[in-house]
Every structure is written in structure tokens, then in C-alpha cells.
């Protein structure tokens, strides 16, 4: 913790902001100049060391290549060219695009409906439900994947057991064609409640008198929710979508755990992040892994930006 010596904290500095928000007599004259920087310093130091420095180092790594002859040489964008023409990258990106198109709308749709239900007068015991729904977020994704992996399992998974008892064939959740929905379910289980809490909090800020006015107008609760409440919490919904897009393209823990029980389905390049991990720590190609990481970042940025542009266009058309 930075304990400021009083002399430093109060030392009048040339060009110090005279006062904050135009009021406050003594405040801000001297201390306003140094104090905020000192309060920010610890975070910024850690931020520089563990966020900015590794990014710069990754950029540097991605522009060089180790040659058998001649040592490490600058190769410009060669690593990026290699990564972008690598079918493994596009396999992973394709998987995640498919995953995101299914999982994000389903999860956020459920989260929104639950938030609206808990926000309405229709549900009793909402504090209990809110906490219960949020609980999976506290469960490590390793454990979530492991437990769902056992639930899916053909050997002692209860779904397979139940289907067998009924004389039906259970789908093989761990097969190639079921893996994306199976992973989507694990992620949905973990994060629906988290998103619901964010949306619920936003709904709580919608003025109550709007609701009374609407019920006098004869609008049903569903119509009111859809036409009044949902548009009012657009920023929170957009926030949830962006967080989900970021999470989707970084998917790593769940597929890595599932690879233990479905090694023939989930290869090293099943997701872009799995592939970056494998390039770095199996092939020891840190240069390619760094380039790939930036490509993932770029894809996240482009998809997020495209979504924001679409949302803005839809808003303008209303």
C-alpha cells in the first residue's frame, strides 16, 4: 500500500488542477496533482509487467524465427503468413464459430428469460434462485467439464444408463458430431447464471413506475418485458454478448479436459487456443504460437466490432 508522506501529498505543484468539478475549496489544489498517480502506480506497475510487457514480447516473438543456421532472424510477417495458411487454425476457428452461433444465443436467451422472470412479480423466492443459478460460476471449469464428462459417459453416465433401462440407444455425447453441443452445454451450465445476474441487476434499475403505467395501459407482463424492459437493458445485453464472444474464441479448459475421454474427437487443433498451446509446448514453436495468439485476438476484435456495428444498425432502424 502506498502510504503517502504528508509533505509529498500536500506539496503544491505547478500547473496543478485548481479544483475538481469547479467546487471544493482546498481540495484538489495540491494533492490532486500527485495523489491519483500514486494511487494508480501499484496497479499500473503490475499491469505493465504482466500485461503490457508480455504483449510486447509476444509481438517480438512473432516477428522472429530460429533458424538452424544463422540463429534467430527477423522474418517480418512470415509467421503470420504460416499461421493464416495453416488449415489447423481455420479448423479451430470454424469449430468455435459453430460453437458460438449455437451456444451464445441459447445461453443469453435463457439468461434473459430467467432474469425477466425473477424481475417480475411472478416468481417467489427469487433471492434463492438467483444464488442457486449463480452457483455453477463458482465451480472450476475443470470440475464442471470433468463432471459433465462422467455424465455424458457411455460407461456409467446416467443418461446412457437411463436410455439403456428404457431399451433406447442414448446418443454418444462424446462422438464427433455431438461434441460441439456437449461442450456448449458445459459452458452454458457454467455461465448462464453469471449472465443472468448481470442482466437482472440491469433490470432492477428500470424504474418501477414504468411498470405501473404499462399495466394501467393494459399491456401484459410479457409484452411489457419485451417492448420496454429489454430495450432499456440493451447495454447490459451487449456487454454479455461481447464477453461471450471473447470467451468463445478462448475456449480451452473444457475441450482440454474432454480430450482425456474423447482423444479421437478433440485433437490438438480443436480450438485455436488448444492449437496455440500445442504449438508452444509440444512443438516448441513459440514464434508461431505468438503469431497465432495475435490472430485469435484480431478475430475476437473483428467479431466483437461486427456485432457492435450490427447492434447499432438494428438500433438505428427501430
Amino acid at each position, binding site marked *: 500500500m502506498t502510504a503517502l508522506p504528508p509533505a509529498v*501529498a500536500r506539496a503544491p505543484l505547478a500547473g496543478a488542477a485548481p479544483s475538481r468539478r469547479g467546487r471544493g475549496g482546498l481540495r484538489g489544489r495540491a494533492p490532486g496533482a500527485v495523489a491519483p498517480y500514486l494511487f494508480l502506480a*501499484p496497479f499500473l506497475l*503490475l499491469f505493465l509487467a*504482466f500485461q503490457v510487457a508480455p504483449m510486447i514480447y509476444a509481438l517480438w516473438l512473432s516477428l522472429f524465427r530460429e533458424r538452424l543456421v544463422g540463429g534467430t532472424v527477423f522474418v517480418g510477417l512470415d509467421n503470420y503468413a504460416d499461421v493464416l495458411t495453416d488449415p489447423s487454425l481455420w479448423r479451430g476457428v470454424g469449430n468455435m464459430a459453430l460453437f458460438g452461433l449455437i451456444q451464445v444465443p441459447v445461453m443469453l436467451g435463457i439468461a434473459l428469460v430467467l432474469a425477466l422472470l425473477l424481475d417480475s412479480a411472478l416468481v417467489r423466492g427469487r433471492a434463492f434462485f438467483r444464488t442457486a443459478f449463480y452457483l455453477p460460476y463458482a465451480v472450476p471449469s*475443470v470440475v464442471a467439464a470433468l463432471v459433465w464428462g462422467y455424465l455424458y459417459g457411455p460407461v456409467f453416465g*446416467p443418461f446412457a444408463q437411463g436410455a439403456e433401462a428404457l431399451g433406447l440407444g442414448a446418443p454418444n455425447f462424446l462422438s464427433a458430431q455431438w461434441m460441439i453441443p456437449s461442450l456448449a452445454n458445459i459452458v452454458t*451450465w457454467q455461465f448462464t447464471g453469471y449472465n443472468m445476474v448481470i442482466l437482472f441487476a440491469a433490470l432492477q434499475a428500470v424504474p418501477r413506475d414504468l411498470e405501473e403505467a404499462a399495466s394501467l395501459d393494459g399491456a401484459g407482463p410479457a409484452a411489457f418485458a419485451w417492448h420496454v424492459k429489454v430495450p432499456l437493458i440493451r447495454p447490459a445485453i451487449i456487454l454479455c454478448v461481447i464477453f461471450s464472444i471473447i470467451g468463445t474464441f478462448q475456449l*480451452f479448459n473444457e475441450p482440454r479436459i474432454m480430450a*482425456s475421454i474423447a482423444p479421437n474427437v478433440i485433437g490438438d487443433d480443436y480450438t485455436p487456443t488448444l492449437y496455440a498451446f500445442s504449438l508452444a*509446448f509440444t512443438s516448441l514453436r513459440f514464434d508461431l504460437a505468438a503469431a497465432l495468439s495475435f490472430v485469435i485476438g484480431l478475430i475476437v476484435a473483428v467479431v466483437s466490432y461486427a456485432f457492435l456495428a450490427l447492434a447499432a444498425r438494428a438500433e438505428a432502424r427501430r
Partner: protein
Amino acid sequence: MTAGARRGAGASFRRSRTLAMAAVLLFLLYTLLPLWYLLVSATKTNQQLFSSFGLWFGGDLNLWENLAALFARDDGIFLRWMLNSALYSVLAGVGAAAVATMAGYALSKFRFRGRDATFAVIIGSVMVPNTVLVIPLFLLFAGVGLTDTWAAVVLPSTVFPLGVYLMKVYIDGAVPDELLDAARMDGASEASIFLTVVLRLASPGIVTVLLLGATSTWNNYFLPLVMLTRGEALPVTVGLAQWFDLASAGSGGQALFSIVITGALVGVLPVVALFLALQRFWQGGLASGAVK
């Protein structure tokens, strides 16, 4: 409105309420299913895992035997993993909350050059994929010989941009400018204002950030997977994943199933207990962040 119409509205309200409760209860069932399965399975022997129905108990309770086997396996390394997770989480959570509180206070209550840009960069950093950071971090830590130490997991985890955002928003609402003005008028130093006024008023927000920071460290898998190789340094997530892999690989590893499941239950309990105990805090703290 006539009496009949009102009665009709009442009936439709009741129908809506039944539907709403049914939907919410259905989702509750889905939420609890894996947790129930985990709890039930932790009471079974390996044989019972295969022979009994997964969602119900399998006769004799074998929980104590499973726990004993879990903590005895590999010379009791599971306890070590739990303690590692606790140590990493507490250090990272306290560190993240401390620096995020100071930074959030600076961004909330001071006007200074570069404030908006600093805030934008901190928020924008949420977009940076983990791999961009973790792989070079590994090389940097390896360069100074710090991989396989607590520092390799704890130090990067103290950078918690979302925590700074939450603290800024929380302090915006919880610490009135007038109070700070009055304290300055009384001649209090900036440091003592922070320590006496800000810390006290912002404490629910601080607890939230501490809880979120500690939980995300407890639940983290990617960073410790990359940074740590020594068995005694692993947190519980990485250790369990290794055992899971071993159990799934067959070849005699099957005796591990009940140990893995019991370990998963034990590994979840501290975080879940903490979340339940502190829900008053995180519900308020998260709420203030989401509304903005």
C-alpha cells in the same frame, strides 16, 4: 374494470405464475443435476459407480473411505494441492483487491491528465486473449527462473482489470465527494483519507473484488498448467485434471474414478462455501457494476 374481468385477470396471472415457476424450477433442476451427481458419486465405490444408477446412492455409503483414499493417494499430495490453491487464491485475491481499490479510487475521485485514456486501456485489456499473455509470460518467468514458484501464478493474477472497473463504479456511488472535501478541509492527508474514509465506505466492493479475484485464481487452469510442472506446486485444478487423464486412460487407472470424483467435490466446496457466505457482498457489488 368489472368484477368478472378482474377475476379473469387474476386467473391469467395465476396461470402466468405457474408457468414462470415451472420454468425457473426446470432450470434449477438443470443447475443442480451435475452437483447432485457429484455428491452422490462421491459416496460410491468404483464398483458401485459402474453398477448402480448414477443419480442415486448405491447402497452403503463409501464417502469416508473415498476421502481417506483421496488424501492418502501419492503420499497425501491432494492436501498439498488444496493448500496451494488456497495460498495462491488468497495472495492473488488480496493483491488484486488492494491495487484495484487504489486504482479505482484514483479513477473515480480525481481529475488528472490521462485519466480517461488510462481507464479505456484498462477496460480494453479485457479483450486480450489469455494465450497472448500466458505463453510469453511463461518464457519471461522461465528466463528469471521463477516458473514452478508461487510467484508465477500469483503475480500475473493480481492484474484484474475488471476489479478496477468494479471498484471505480462502486466508489463513484459509495464515497460522497463532500466527505472527502470535509476531510481535506480538516487537513487530513490523502493517505489517511484513503485509509480511514475510502476503505471503510468501499468495503463491500472490496470484498466483492477480493472474492472474485480469489475465485478466479482458485478456478484458473491455463496459467498454472503452463507455469507449474512440479507435482507439489500444483493447484487442485491442474492436479485433478492429471488424475482425470490418468483414470480415463484405462490401464489400471480405473481405480482412480472414485478418487477423482471425491477430489472434485472437495475441490469445489471451499469456493462454493465462500460464495454462499459472502453473497450479500457480491450481489451488491456486481449489481453496481452492471447497471452502468
